[in-house]
């Protein structure tokens, strides 16, 4: 994997914080204080650690994760088989499309995998057709049929 990001050094407290904040964040006026208490930390220490984890990029973010479909939107995984000599140009096309949220190069004949997210379910097909028109390549859609698990468990 090509990445300039070096692994961060997390101590045991950081790891406990990341794991404790996977879900079930309290809906009370002082939620960080409530979580801090279960971790044996002060509210100020937990907030300082969280600031550090977000600032250093260990956490992409901390907050509510919404289900776009429940808000009327739609999301689908999609893939294309892109000729190697056109790969960067096609990646640039997707970079400019706001409907494309993530895009990864993967080692497979289907070598470009991306997420299409749109405000309406009809938007998925429209984005698929737009990408096909712009690139001349077939876009395969892999919308989720059922979700078994989404989350992250960090070794404590």
């Amino acid at each position, binding site marked *: 994997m090509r990445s300039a*990001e070096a692994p961060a050094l997390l101590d045991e407290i950081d790891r406990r914080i990341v794991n404790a*904040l996977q879900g079930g964040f309290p809906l009370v006026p002082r939620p960080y204080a409530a979580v801090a208490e279960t971790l044996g930390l002060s509210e100020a220490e937990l907030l300082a650690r969280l600031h550090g984890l977000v600032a250093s990029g260990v956490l992409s973010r901390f907050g509510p994760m919404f289900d776009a479909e429940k808000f009327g939107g739609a999301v689908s995984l999609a893939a294309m*088989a892109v000729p190697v000599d056109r790969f960067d140009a096609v*990646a640039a096309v*997707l970079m400019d499309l706001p409907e494309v949220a993530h895009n990864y190069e993967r080692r*497979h004949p289907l070598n470009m*995998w991306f997420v299409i997210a749109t405000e309406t379910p009809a938007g998925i097909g429209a984005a698929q057709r737009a990408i096909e028109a712009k690139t001349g390549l077939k876009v395969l*859609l892999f*919308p989720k049929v059922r979700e078994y698990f*989404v989350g992250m468990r960090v070794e404590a």
Partner: protein
Amino acid sequence: MSRPPLDALDRAIIAATQGGLPLTPTPYADVAARVDADEAEVIARLSRMLEAGAVRRIGAVPNHYRLGLSHNGMTVWDVDDAEVDRLGEIVGALDFVTHCYRRPRALPDWPYNLFAMVHGRSRDEVEAKRAEIVDLLGGFVRASDILYSTRILKKTGLRIAG
């Protein structure tokens, strides 16, 4: 399908927090001030959206690369449609699987209907985890593959308009 009872205030709360919940002692009161509601209303709305599944969870999103999990493989499996839900639950329960979904096949290009994302510190670690899934699924696997990511081309979060 009935439309979930989400209104403008719900959307405003999500729009105000999708970049992150304030890292302050009173995050809900701070959000309330931004959406012109009061703290109790914001808490009640978030609670309702959690119950309805419109908010999946309030939590931390770790960056795998910064955690040293620099290798990721999308493992994909062709299993019997009659067994896929049972097997998906089993694979999704593995602690090294971060996403596990049933998705449609795209024949003839793509015979796989079960997707499980596996992260590790090295290629070998990812392969060892894939082997664990092979053992678990046993004779139910008709075909499988693993697609390593070689480059992140774009990464922007999903956003909703406020």
